């Protein structure tokens, strides 16, 4: 599997990264080099292997379903580049 300029464009759109036209081809080359290198994993037959889902053998803890935190709107928006009255401000999204 190898990626071309159009695939890079599509993936960059998915990743929400603006890539100028002149960087699409070099980026395709860079990604292909990495993808080609990782393809060596196909040498290994994993048809009978379960994927790792938990790094160490522990079961997740349960806790009571209660509110433990909140009322911190000021903290939440404190670092926003743009905001007003404890709201985040974004460019207009509905007409």
């Amino acid at each position, binding site marked *: 599997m190898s990626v071309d300029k159009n695939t890079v464009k599509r993936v960059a759109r*998915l990743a929400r990264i603006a890539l100028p036209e002149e960087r699409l081809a070099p980026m395709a080359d860079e990604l292909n080099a990495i993808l080609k290198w990782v393809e060596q994993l196909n*040498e290994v037959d994993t048809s009978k292997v379960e994927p790792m889902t938990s790094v160490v053998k522990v079961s*997740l803890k349960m806790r009571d379903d209660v509110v433990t935190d909140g009322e911190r709107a000021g903290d939440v928006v404190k670092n926003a580049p743009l905001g007003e009255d404890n709201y985040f401000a974004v460019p207009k999204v509905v007409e």
Partner: protein
Amino acid sequence: MSDLTSLTIADAREGLRKKSFSARELTEAHIKAVEKARALNCFVTETPEIALKGAEEADKRIAAGSARALEGIPLGIKDLFCTKGVLTTAGSHILDGFQPPYESTVTRNLFDAGVVMLGKLNMDEFAMGSSNETSYHKPVINPWRRKGSNTPLVPGGSSGGSAASVAGRLVLGATGTDTGGSIRQPAAVTGIVGIKPTYGRCSRWGIVAFASSLDQAGPMARTVRDCAILMKTMASHDPMDSTSVDLPVPDYEAAMTGDIKGLKVGIPKEYRIDGMPPEIEELWQKGIQWLKDAGATMVDVSLPHTKYALPAYYIVAPAEASSNLARYDGVRFGLRVPGKDIISMYENTRAAGFGREVQRRVLIGTYVLSAGYYDAYYLKAQKLRTLIARDFEDAYKKCDVLLTPATPGPAFGIAEKTDDPIAMYLNDVFTVTVNLAGLPGISVPAGLNREGLPLGLQLIGKAFDEATLFRVGEVLEKAAGPLPRPTPWWEV
């Protein structure tokens, strides 16, 4: 009082308790060392006022007889740890101006034990790098230089500021994080000790996320004992991180008995890789001899899937990173670059805010997770992880701990490897398997090469058996003998 910066944490702890010097004197000596070493570019943010305030509190506590475990010990904090009210950038432009309204659990544990923070340490952007050259704040310079040469060398990465500041005697110790080798590899090439604990030993809460199933915090310091001291305080169960384990944290210092008689040390044959420099092989043989001399037995073991660890890592880590980094959208924190609509605002912000390596990894991650490719890449890599973890389980049926080189070579020159991402990735060839299997690993300085540069050996332990790593690590450290101090050419 410049000799105060050459103390170990153990000695500083003792000196403070005996009142041989005050926390203020100790802190001031370090602040001065930090100021004189700006040429190394270790710090993103220096916090002398916070440090002096902490030292004042420490002196009060010591006078009152209520000193805590790390009272008055000056440390540096990797800029990946959120520190309340103090700029936290993760080495990225996209986190410009970010002042976390909360404290990471690891730094909270340290500050609650009396640690004095000297500042926030430079690092590869979002911990993605092996040389500290991807930092938005410019590379960190290794205090070590080749004999008779002025060529600036990298300190390894991603915890490069941590490693260089510890090696350069700017801090007594530092926090690091390790996703594929980011504590152990820089520790090795700067001649210090660094341990990546078992996944789950330290809480990840408040640490800027890179690859959540691999990230783990750990200490970096100049001796094995100092790392044991820091580790005891950094590790904890934390309800805020569901993957942190609820296990008692052992007294690691007490485990350092110096006795390894009868210990079985595994030597994995797959770590003898093609093109490995002879000096690395020699170093490994020296390590084997040191442990034999101390009464340990060597056992040949096989970790057959070792060669697949790096490629599996470069699927898993970018995939998880692409998901974790989705939060940098120009809305909630950091940089914002306007666009014609909200989508182009996101795209412009992320194009300007992420460096080249981060963009490359986010794109790889997005691609391997995109519709139709998930099974071929991410699922395949997670299956390889199962096999890699199984290799270790099989090996530990025959031995207690593994001994390997820490890195495939010494520190290299700035910009020597930046053109070829895969060549750069190979720096983590000996460390990355450990992250994929969630195991603990420690890097211990094992001497200087012919060019006068430090090299390290790695010990890999069973899950949650950090105590054995400290015990064996100290034996290696003693056998190798103390490294000379790097000449402080950077001092102004």
